[in-house]
């Protein structure tokens, strides 16, 4: 045998992926990092102790939700996020935000904005810091008490995203005004009657128990109406026309983020509904109820933002939302 033969040693893999992953993806074939980092990560049985905070359930317990799925790993994230690619995506988006801040700064765009635009932007955006905070709380809740890593991991990322948004809004406020603007926003959130319907809704979501209903209420119904209304109708259309391009630039993360996440949210709802008529019925009821409530809660906010055109804009947003739901296969 020549020495060259000795060099060519065949290094053959014994398997392409983990057995539990192979079971889910239809056989032993190369699996993605998303699949290997997600499927089967959460333990499902043999829990030693009942939670002291919820002795009626196991630590991880699918019965915390009324949604029933034979396999909770059908709730795939089309973005295929695991921590690394999620955080890399967000860092890239953050670089864009920084670039926008630099641009706005270097061109003096903020100082060219009228007081009216600045005040209007703050009036609408500052109370939303608190809405984003609740989104953070609620998605952390789903991460803690939801079932299966396929839903709980992206909810963790989504919670952090909401916190990022709360901090972006804070930074925006500090960039365009003095720190008192944060207090003013909080004061409106707590006391201005026009924010109270929304605050009531938000506080009601904070005490919900079913993690999947919370997913629908927060991520689909509320955010699904709020983001298009605020960052579409108000910031991108209304403020931009009035010379508030800087506001759009400094909040560009939010609409981009919402578009991205909507695909995931829809996939989750669709997969739940596809499993059974019972699930579909539940989803339909939840979406209907929470979207109606969210729309009603956003009505006075739309008025703060868009004045007399507020209701029209909100109605348009709702029509688009209903079309989105129809695409999932749910008729309201």
């Amino acid at each position, binding site marked *: 045998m020549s020495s060259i033969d000795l060099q060519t040693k065949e290094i053959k893999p014994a398997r392409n992926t983990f057995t539990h992953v192979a079971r889910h993806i239809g056989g032993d074939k190369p699996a993605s990092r998303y699949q290997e980092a997600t499927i089967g990560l959460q333990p499902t049985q043999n829990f030693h102790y*009942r939670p*002291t*905070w*919820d*002795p*009626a359930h196991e630590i991880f317990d699918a019965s915390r939700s009324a949604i029933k799925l034979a396999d909770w790993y059908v709730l795939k994230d089309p973005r295929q996020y695991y921590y690394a690619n999620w955080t890399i995506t967000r860092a890239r988006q953050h670089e864009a935000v920084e670039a926008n801040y630099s641009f706005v700064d270097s061109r003096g765009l903020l100082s060219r904005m009228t007081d009216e635009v600045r005040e209007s932007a703050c009036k609408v955006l500052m109370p939303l810091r608190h809405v984003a905070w609740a989104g953070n709380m609620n998605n952390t809740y789903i991460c803690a008490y939801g079932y299966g890593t396929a839903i709980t991991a992206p909810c963790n990322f989504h919670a952090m995203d909401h916190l990022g948004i709360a901090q972006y809004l804070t930074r925006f406020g500090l960039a365009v005004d003095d720190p008192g603007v944060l207090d003013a926003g909080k004061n409106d959130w707590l006391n201005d009657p026009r924010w109270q319907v929304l605050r009531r809704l938000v506080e009601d979501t904070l005490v919900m128990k079913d993690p999947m209903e919370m997913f629908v209420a927060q991520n689909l119904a509320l955010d699904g109406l709020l983001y298009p209304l605020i960052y579409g109708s108000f910031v991108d259309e209304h403020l931009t026309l009035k010379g508030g391009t800087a506001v759009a630039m400094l909040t560009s993360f939010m609409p981009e983020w919402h578009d991205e996440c909507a695909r995931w949210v829809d996939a989750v709802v669709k997969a739940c509904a596809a499993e059974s008529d019972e699930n579909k019925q539940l989803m339909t009821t939840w979406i209907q109820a929470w979207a109606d409530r969210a729309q009603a809660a956003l009505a006075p906010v739309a008025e703060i933002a868009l004045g007399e055109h507020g209701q029209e804009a909100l109605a348009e947003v709702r029509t688009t939302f209903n079309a989105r739901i129809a695409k999932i296969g749910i008729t309201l």
Partner: protein
Amino acid sequence: MSVTAIGAYTHEPHDTADRFTAPLLYVAWDEHMIFAAPAVVPLSMHTIMADVQSKVLPKLYGAHPEFERIQWSQVQWFCGDRMFTPKPKGTLAEHGFGHKSVLRFRTPGLEGLRGSCG
């Protein structure tokens, strides 16, 4: 003390005697830790000590090179911490054993591989 919990927090133990085909006896040969931990064996408490010595222990420890050198008359027996003198015809129950008791025996002069308790 009781568990600090948000509501009532009491649970059945998982290993009461009724859940096994026979009560559980823990068995250990002191100073012989190639058998790293005491063994769990389901064993009727009516088993007599002579059978424990001649049937149960050889199965568990017969592989040890010192086992055949044991002088059974010299062996010290313990039920938990309590030393006792076994009656060959006496049952485990009669010697105070019950579900989840520990039976230990010590063999003076035999202290494991090269005296290492191995």
